[in-house]
């Protein structure tokens, strides 16, 4: 290492022979680093927002079904088959698996909600009004009326459904649903409230009914539920926790399977992968631009020092040593750039993370991949972004130094000294 010290010193001194140029180049690298880290941070922020919204609004981050339930979603495929399960016991077992934040059981079906002249086909979700808030935010989106009460024949409909049926909380509607015994379950329900998520598939096609009332309508025993929705401490641990849940619950319930959101909301997972690929491309472009900046500076400085290189060469300095002076200059420039970059980036990231820029006055809510995204510029802290960018910055400095180093080595001492 002592042997290397001299090269660092030489590089450092050479750089400060033209402080302005060095500072500008290091500044360019710093801006490159800053852009790459902040852009990746914003993009990760959007992805996180999408995944959390996509999974927390209603689906949950893990769903537990009977193996035959998906994709056909037959109403007969309840957990534990025809016998059903002890719902409370199952929920306790689910909650005990590490990484699980909350669990709630659901009964799922389809049916018609009719106000008389207008009828809308909806997906019906029977839920437990007391447990549901542990796994989803759907009840917090109620903007008119209130959520249905446990055991009541009440219904919560979406904003679009309300508009189509032209009803209001307190009105009676007819609910018709194919029942498990083949009959057409039908009954009157009172509209308790209206929710609005901004996601059309929910606002226009989903209705929520207390679990007991839906089981009665669909002629299902109280032990028969289709789904347990699970919320996690860390959404990105879904695949691992799902596997653990499947293992933990299998001895208790036949052919039970826990699926992570990356399976049942595969489009979100695909979006995350796409965003990652996009980030890589952006980082790549930013640093390709930086390469040219650094290379230009080093080329200039080696050209200015033609005579100098000719002298040291004539004095017997090896080609490798000459190349090393230039490459180390590149590296020192990289370190300078990174230092400036970190000073610039760190506070910006903290600021954007804690106090996101809200653009919702300029643009409305955006739905992407069936998930609501607020038009808010925020960043997600990640280790990957800064580390990859830092590595890229060093590689950039090295690569950018290669051509100038090659030029320096190729200077013919006699010609250069003769001023030719």
């Amino acid at each position: 290492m002592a042997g290397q010290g001299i090269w660092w010193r030489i590089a450092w001194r050479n750089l400060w022979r033209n402080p302005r140029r060095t500072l500008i180049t290091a500044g360019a690298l710093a801006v490159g680093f800053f852009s790459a880290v902040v852009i990746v941070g914003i993009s990760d922020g959007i992805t996180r927002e999408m995944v959390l919204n996509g999974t927390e609004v209603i689906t949950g981050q893990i769903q537990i079904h009977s193996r035959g339930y998906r994709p056909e979603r037959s109403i007969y495929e309840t957990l534990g088959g025809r016998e059903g399960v002890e719902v409370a016991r199952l929920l306790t077992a689910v909650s005990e698996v590490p990484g699980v934040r909350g669990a709630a059981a659901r009964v799922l079906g389809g049916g018609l909600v009719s106000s008389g002249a207008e009828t809308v086909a909806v997906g019906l979700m029977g839920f437990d009004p007391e447990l549901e808030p542990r796994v989803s935010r759907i009840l917090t989106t109620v903007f008119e009326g209130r959520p249905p009460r446990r055991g009541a024949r009440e219904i919560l409909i979406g904003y679009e459904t309300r508009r189509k049926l032209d009803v209001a909380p307190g009105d009676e509607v007819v609910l018709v649903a194919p029942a498990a015994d083949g009959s057409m379950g039908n009954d009157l329900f009172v509209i308790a409230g209206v929710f609005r998520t901004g996601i059309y598939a929910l606002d226009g096609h989903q209705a929520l009914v207390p679990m007991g009332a839906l089981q009665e309508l669909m002629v299902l025993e109280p032990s028969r539920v289709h789904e347990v929705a699970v919320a996690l401490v860390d959404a990105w641990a879904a695949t691992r926790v799902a596997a653990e849940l499947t293992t933990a619950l299998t001895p208790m319930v036949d052919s039970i399977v826990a699926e992570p959101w990356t399976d049942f909301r595969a489009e979100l997972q695909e979006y995350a992968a796409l965003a990652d690929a996009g980030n890589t491309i952006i980082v790549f472009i930013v640093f390709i631009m930086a390469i040219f900046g650094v290379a230009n500076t080093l080329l200039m400085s080696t050209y200015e020092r033609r005579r100098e290189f000719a002298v040291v060469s004539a004095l017997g300095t090896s080609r490798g040593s000459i190349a090393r002076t230039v490459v180390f200059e590149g590296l020192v420039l990289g370190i300078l750039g990174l230092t400036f970059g970190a000073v610039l980036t760190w506070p910006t990231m903290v600021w954007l993370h804690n106090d996101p820029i809200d653009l919702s006055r300029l643009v409305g809510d955006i739905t992407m991949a069936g998930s609501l995204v607020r038009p808010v510029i925020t960043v997600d802290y990640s280790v990957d972004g800064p580390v990859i960018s830092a590595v890229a910055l060093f590689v950039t400095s090295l690569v950018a130094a290669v051509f100038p180093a090659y030029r320096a080595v190729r200077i013919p001492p006699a010609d250069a000294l003769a001023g030719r």
Partner: protein
Amino acid sequence: MAIIDRHERRRRVLSALRVSVVTLTLSLAGVLGLSAQSARDIVDQVDRLLRGESSWSRVTMEIETEHWSRSLGLEVWSLGVDYAIVRVLEPLREAGTATLMADEEVWNYLPRVDRTIKVPPSLMMGSWMGSHFTHDDLVKESRMIEDYDIEIGFEGDRDGVTVWEFELTPKPEAPVVWGRVVQQVRKDDMMPTWARYYDEDGGLVRTIRFGELEVHDGRLIPTTLTLRPEDNPSESTTVTYHEIDFDIDIDVDFFSLRNLRARR
């Protein structure tokens, strides 16, 4: 026994009579050459068999599925192709539930809540009362000659019976969900034996078999229709006609929402 015998005798006489009429028609057809027009006529005639201009009937619908089986007793009124009311008589728990088809609309009356609801267009392909028939079947099934181009796909012997097999291809603009329908009709008595429904990729979706020929109200008709969905051949819906009267005294006014609700 005596009643059955008399019934049987009457049936034989009538079907013999019909056979001779059909034979006469056929020999004429043979002379004139059976054109596409007469293929249409035959399909139309078969299509009208169970309907007449108007009709009243009492039927049972037996539904077998993987998960349950049940039997519904139904009373049906129909007028032309556009109007029908179906009322559930049995089981008692569901008695009074009724469906009105008027033009292309379907309404259900639910006695338990005493409400009438309109079936939305998106649900027309949904099951009717849990059976393998869809609402769409109830409304559109009766318009064979309007919606399809009809050709003879096969003519000759099948298992010793002379039959036609008509190929029904939906007209381009027809609101039909099938890619193609093939219907087999026995030549000697013009009775349909089966109809096969294919999707747009040419896959067989379901088969309806006609059986138990009987004379009702002076007509020879198949009194059972069995629908078997191809994706689950252990399931089926069978409609059995017990009584049927044709050309009854009924008009459009009968097919109203008010009448749908009325309990007899």
